[in-house]
């Protein structure tokens, strides 16, 4: 199917545009909730909406009979959901403030209490109005695929409201989430801002449960923001990235839920849109956690391995320098001082030759002029640091070598200059070994 069809086809535009708007507003609110370390509040409140959904549907059924229109039904259900989410929030506040229950326990209690009430109501409705029960179930697990133009209109309005509030109050939101006490002292009405945040959260949840469902709603709040958090360096970039990830997940969720069955040519296979969106968002989040340039696990591992490799290279240059910088040596000599496999040593020697630090001919290894300088420099840093530890930090002579083995690869030219100045350009290290002078290097 053509990508544009997702946005213009009368059947597909409802789910696609509807979920994109819904994800956008949920994720923006989620970003604020994440910064406030209240991720679980979203989970508790989304479950709290369940009795509201059931009662709203039942009330609409009682008032208008079985032939109630979709629009009326949606409005009743959304209102009920919002009221009960608010009640859930009041419950959490009561438990935390008045009964002094820890936050995690309070959230857990409210989540199960409200959800339990909802399930009880629902089982009653199931027998009294079985067609209504179908409607209720839709909100539990979400049913994006049946959304229509009416939903687009409704969600556009609600999402626009959420986005406007976040954009207009971004400075207050930033202040309150970063430094609440300071915010108070410069005249921010923190109570009001926090009330707005709660209102936004309830609004975002109510918007979201129709497409991804009560059970998966909290993932929609948190996943895009958690992904963006890995890359963002400012509050504004966090909001922008969160919005991008959210819209992308919503579109890809819709796209994949239709394209994968088509690709596999399996008519019976159907992928529900809501869970698909949650999966995409979670995968994006996981991807960001693993691969983001600054904090990503994978790149940190790569940097660690590269550092270890550099240490090894420098240690070999250092060994050659100590063995006699101007003479030729063999692999066996190096292996006496450095513990690594012969194969690994050969590999590293090739690299060092390639980089111009040494020359290899028939198993004879000799440092080049540059290699001699670099080897000497490492020894210099090692011995300077040892001397510093003994004279300035009061460490025992026998204990400084191990630390210097590490620091010789780390010390920057600035620290080296400072050490030289502090120790009055020393000639000998604590073990009476000469420190290679700087001029020669």
């Amino acid at each position, binding site marked *: 199917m053509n990508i544009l069809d997702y946005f213009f086809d009368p059947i597909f535009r409802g789910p696609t545009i509807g979920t994109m708007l819904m994800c956008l507003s949920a994720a923006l609110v989620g970003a604020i909730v994440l910064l406030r370390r209240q991720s679980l509040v979203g989970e508790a409140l989304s479950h709290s909406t369940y009795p509201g959904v059931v009662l709203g549907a039942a009330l609409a059924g009682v008032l208008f009979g079985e032939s109630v229109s979709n629009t009326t039904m949606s409005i009743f259900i959304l209102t009920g959901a919002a009221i009960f989410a608010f009640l859930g929030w009041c419950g959490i506040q009561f438990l935390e403030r008045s009964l002094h229950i820890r936050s995690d326990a309070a959230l857990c209690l409210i989540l199960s209490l409200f959800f339990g009430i909802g399930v009880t109501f629902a089982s009653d409705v199931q027998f009294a109005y079985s067609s209504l029960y179908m409607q209720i179930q839709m909100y539990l697990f979400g049913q994006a695929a049946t959304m229509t133009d009416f939903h687009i209109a409704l969600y556009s309005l609600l999402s626009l409201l959420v986005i406007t509030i976040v954009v207009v109050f971004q400075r*207050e939101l930033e202040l309150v989430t*970063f*430094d609440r*006490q300071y915010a108070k*002292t*410069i005249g921010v009405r923190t109570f009001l801002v926090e009330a707005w945040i709660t209102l936004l959260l309830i609004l975002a949840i109510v918007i979201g449960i129709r497409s991804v469902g009560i059970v998966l709603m909290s993932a929609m709040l948190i996943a895009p923001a958690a992904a963006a958090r890995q890359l963002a360096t400012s509050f504004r970039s*966090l909001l922008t990235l969160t919005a991008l990830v959210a819209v992308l997940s919503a579109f890809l969720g819709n796209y994949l839920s239709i394209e994968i069955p088509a690709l596999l040519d399996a008519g019976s296979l159907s992928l529900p849109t809501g869970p698909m969106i949650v999966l995409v968002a979670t995968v994006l989040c996981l991807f960001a956690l693993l691969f983001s340039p600054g904090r990503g696990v994978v790149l940190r591992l790569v940097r660690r391995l590269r550092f270890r490799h550099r240490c090894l290279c420098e240690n070999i240059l250092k060994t050659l320098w100590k063995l006699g910088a101007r003479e030729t040596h063999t692999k066996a000599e190096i292996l006496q001082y450095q513990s690594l496999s012969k194969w690994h040593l050969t590999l590293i020697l090739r690299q060092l030759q390639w980089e111009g630090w040494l020359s290899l001919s028939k198993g004879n290894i000799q440092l080049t002029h540059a290699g001699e300088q670099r080897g000497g420099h490492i020894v210099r840093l090692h011995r300077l640091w040892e001397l510093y530890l003994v004279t300035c930090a009061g460490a025992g002579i026998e204990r400084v070598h191990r630390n210097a083995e590490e620091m010789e690869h780390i010390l920057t030219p600035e620290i080296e200059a400072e050490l030289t100045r502090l120790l009055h350009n020393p000639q000998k290290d604590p073990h009476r070994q000469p420190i290679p002078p700087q001029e020669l290097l």
Partner: protein
Amino acid sequence: MKHPLSVSQLTVNYDNTPSLWDISFEAPQGLIGLIGPNGAGKSTLIKATMGLVEPLSGKILFFGKPLAEVYQRIAYVPQRESVDWDYPITVRDVVMMGRYGHLGLLKWPRQADEEAVDHMLELVGMTPYTHRQISQLSGGQQQRVFLARALVQEADLYLMDEPFIGIDHATETFLINLLRTLAAKGKTVFVVHHDLNAVEKIFDWVVLLNVRLVAAGPTQEVFTADNLRAAYGTSYSLLDEAFKIALQKQHGV
């Protein structure tokens, strides 16, 4: 002239903060140290004056007026540990927070705000770090950012909570000079401080505190062996303990 800060009969007894009992003093303009041992209630006093902790009783006036009328003339520098330094925000944005009271419609910064921020960043020597995320800063740099944020408020009275903790030597020297300059320009600066060594060199006036007020006045008069023994001795430790038990009884714990 109205005193920059006058506190009368202030009593605080609050769940997790050290308590204060019947504190009264009138501080003149200048560089003022708030000195006392750990748990003496120094930070509590600052927070009570800024309305962040609700006192049981007592009256606090800035320049002869209650805080609500003059809060724009007062800048607060919280302890560094009070915020999450991993928060996604740049150095510049943190400092811009101090301009909140000056910002225009919808709180968009105007040219004057941008220039004030750049100027203060330069003053505290943080210009090269302007667009860095705050998680990359050292302790001293974090303190400089907090100072810049307070300075752009263009206040007349500054309250600084333990600014000397965990900073490098260069920042310490810089901070002392900055405090002196502010005082010389007619500002009043309160500094919570727990290290006794440098007190006489830095401060003109001292409030010596341990749950109750031990002494307040010019540094030479207050910094006597007797006063220090009273503040740092054990005789006051019972006071706080008894207050906390009283609080528990009132709550029926």
